[in-house]
């Protein structure tokens, strides 16, 4: 279910915002799983995502 939840949230920025604001409870995952999901997604929105591609492009 975590897998489906992550996929859904990646598709829906509105739902993601509601989850990050703790304004919605996700069905089908436990409280611990939701806490972990919120933790991960919050820390992601706070940091810059950087795709390092130097090695890849020179492969």
């Amino acid at each position, binding site marked *: 279910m*975590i*897998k489906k939840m*992550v*996929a859904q*949230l*990646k598709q829906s920025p509105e739902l993601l915002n509601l989850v990050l604001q703790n304004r919605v409870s996700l069905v089908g995952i436990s409280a*611990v*799983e939701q*806490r*972990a*999901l919120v*933790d*991960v*997604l919050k820390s*992601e929105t706070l940091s810059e*995502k950087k*795709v*390092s*591609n*130097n*090695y*890849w*492009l020179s*492969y």
Partner: protein
Amino acid sequence: MDRITELSGKIEELVESYFHEPELRRLAKEFIAYKATESGVFGKLASLHCEMFGGSARQAEYAAAAAETMILALDIYDDLQDLDNDAVPWSQVPAALSLNVAIALQALSIEAVCRGAEGDDGRAMLAMRLLNHGILKAVNGQHTDLRNEWATEEECLQMIADKSGALVAAVCLAGTALATGKYNESVAAYGQALGVAAQLRNDIAGVERWDKRNDLLYRKRTLPLFYVLEEPGEKADMLRAYYDGALSRDDVLLHKQELMEFVQECGCIEYAQVHARIKEYEIEKVLAQMELEEHWKEQIRQYM
């Protein structure tokens, strides 16, 4: 003398004592020296647990030596099985020789435990059993991995628990046993969770680093890649075709930028991070219940 030097000294002492055949000794030292360039996390955990529970510095060094030689042996076996790591020295000599060195190192690990027990046969026996139990669990996970048998998230997580979880728990427990002569349930619990979290973070790094060691290019099956390969769409179709052998590495590399972005954005990283975070909560829960000075707990947290 710093701890790393002491650890190398203990391993060197054991190699000199037991490896008389010159080429065996030479290869063992070369493999050990190579391994010493890595993080040494298993040795550090074994040594930390020994010290944490009252073991002497000398015992802690032997605990670390036991852990590091055991893990090196397992790494050699793993690379000989997977044939996916040309960079290591044991892939650059005939497999029969590397295998023999690995067998020797595994046996040396037991001797390190005996020396760490300082004559207490009960502690030696317990620490040896705990290391051995780790290997007995890990071989099951390894077999699942080698046969590509897992198909679900639960099966993948079980395999990780059997491999990485069991091995990390084993070195923590062995270090603890050398100091106390006892099995510690709490150490077993957080050690297991620590190992799983560490493997998941390693697997996340495996899809994030876009160099020769990218797990996708090697068609590895990890939790993040399980997510990727179940995604809908064209890019995932291309990756599935690559895994099935219908596309070559060069075909994939032609689309490297877009595939790299797809993997970064699809959610596979967050998915694995959530599972790692759940394990980290488990570790914190166990630590909270332990009567251990806070500075020791902080040292364990460094491995999260």
